[in-house]
């Protein structure tokens, strides 16, 4: 995925949009899936175990035996300095990285060889940090697309999402691109809920949103988690995030630095000093 080492992705100056259309070009690699297998024993619902790997085949490793996990009903939060590998770890769990070592288990099944696409089919929902809505589609169409893999009647789920985010119901026929930042985040989360995922992964859902929206979002996330859906998220807004977290992972240079419940980490003076800004 690295632009430097993949020659096909070298960024030639193709600014001329009468020739190419860079709008909405994807990053997620397309590949064929391998086999999955059942794993015996007690394991968390979703776990990325001892993951080691980097962005390209012979690029340096970014993650080093990094483990992150979440269980139903829990909120797990990943924090750490910039460049620690938080986003990378999320991507690794979602199969957007070739892991050299380690594995990813979902509900007792080893899914390390699955393509991101098939992980979606397995019930993993992911909200990327940016570009997380279809700007040219209406809010309702966005939600419909969220439920794309479902063949059953989606009107109930849609109603639930509208209950959760009433503002979306008002704006259902508006192009999502016309919404404000916070509203977009709500669409994004709502979209991922439409999938009826088994687990929800959020990458910095609150970056750049105003305090009031942030509170709102955190509230919703807690509500969602209460319904039994495990939530795994990356947050820079660490203090608030750890405040609601059942599990916290502090990553440092691609390694697990500290792990514990949200409260434990908040209480740890070292963590406070070096990652939470005192």
């Amino acid at each position, binding site marked *: 995925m690295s632009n430097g080492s993949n020659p096909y992705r070298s960024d030639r100056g193709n600014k001329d949009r009468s020739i190419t259309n860079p709008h909405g070009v994807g990053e997620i690699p397309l590949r064929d899936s391998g086999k999955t297998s059942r794993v015996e024993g007690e394991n968390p619902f979703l776990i990325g175990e001892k993951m080691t790997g980097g962005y390209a085949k012979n690029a340096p490793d970014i993650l080093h035996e990094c483990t992150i996990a979440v269980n139903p009903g829990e909120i797990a939060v990943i924090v750490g300095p910039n*460049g620690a590998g938080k986003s990378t770890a999320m991507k690794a769990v979602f199969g957007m990285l070739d892991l050299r070592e380690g594995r990813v288990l979902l509900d007792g099944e080893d899914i390390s060889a699955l393509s991101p696409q098939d992980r979606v089919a397995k019930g993993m929902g992911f909200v990327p940090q940016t570009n997380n809505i279809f700007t040219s589609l209406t809010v309702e169409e966005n939600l419909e697309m969220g439920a794309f893999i479902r063949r059953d009647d989606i009107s109930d789920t849609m109603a639930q999402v509208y209950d959760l985010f009433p503002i979306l119901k008002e704006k259902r026929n508006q192009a999502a691109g016309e919404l404000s930042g916070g509203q977009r985040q709500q669409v994004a989360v709502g979209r991922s809920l439409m999938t009826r995922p088994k687990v929800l992964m959020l990458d910095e859902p609150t970056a750049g949103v105003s305090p*009031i929206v942030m509170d709102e979002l955190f509230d919703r996330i807690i509500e969602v988690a209460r319904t039994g859906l495990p939530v795994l998220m990356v947050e820079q807004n660490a203090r608030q995030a750890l405040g609601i977290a059942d599990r916290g992972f502090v990553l440092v240079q691609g390694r697990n630095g500290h792990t514990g419940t949200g409260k434990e980490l908040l209480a740890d003076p070292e963590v406070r000093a070096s990652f939470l800004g005192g």
Partner: protein
Amino acid sequence: MITVDDVHKHFGGFHAVDGATLEIVEGSITGLIGPNGAGKTTLFNVIAGVLEPTSGRVTMSGEDITGLPPHTLFHKGLLRTFQIAHEFRSMTCRENLMMVPGDQSGERLWNTWFGRRRIAEEERALRAKADEVLEFLTIEHLADQRADEVSGGQKKLLELGRTMMVGAKIVFLDEVGAGVNRTLLNTIGDAIIRLNKERNYTFVVIEHDMDFIDKLCDPVICMAEGKVLAQGSLAEIKANEQVIEAYLGTGLKNKAKAGVEA
């Protein structure tokens, strides 16, 4: 230093900035807050010449700068960063910084052919300067890494670093803090204060992190729906009913709040 006089910016029928009037005092660090979609970035873009206002006037030190292109404003000492990092992706981090200073003699074609000596000297100085900035931002190890291969937060640092390469008069920072680790953000805050004190830079800071605003900014301007909602010290703003309703909110309603306080 900068006055914004009844500026409007419409996108089609949508009024992103709807009659904003404000003044930025020389030597201050002004905070600009407001809900998402309030028009803060748009206002920045109008001031910095990226967007032409639908109507209204912007002046800088008494001079009308409405509609001047960004590169002219740069040479007048007006710099800005971007909310979404705009790194030069195929260049190394160091090059990202070295390209910033204007008036490099090596940027004239003629000199590239017949003025090699002078260019070499200038380059040495630029390089030293760039390394200094990288070190300050704690990313000196990334000097030779391509800019599109660093993490989101690191890109933001680079963004800030560029404004440190030249002597500016006024710097507009658009959410430098979003996605930056809090500990590092503190360091950045210190740097901003230092630049403000030592070099007398004027700053305008858009930020959603109230702690950060608290630490740096006085006065604070709050925008909503394209208009200036309130203006004053942070304490005043925080007490303003309208601001609370539109922007700050009253905190988390349930468990989260409890968690924070614990």
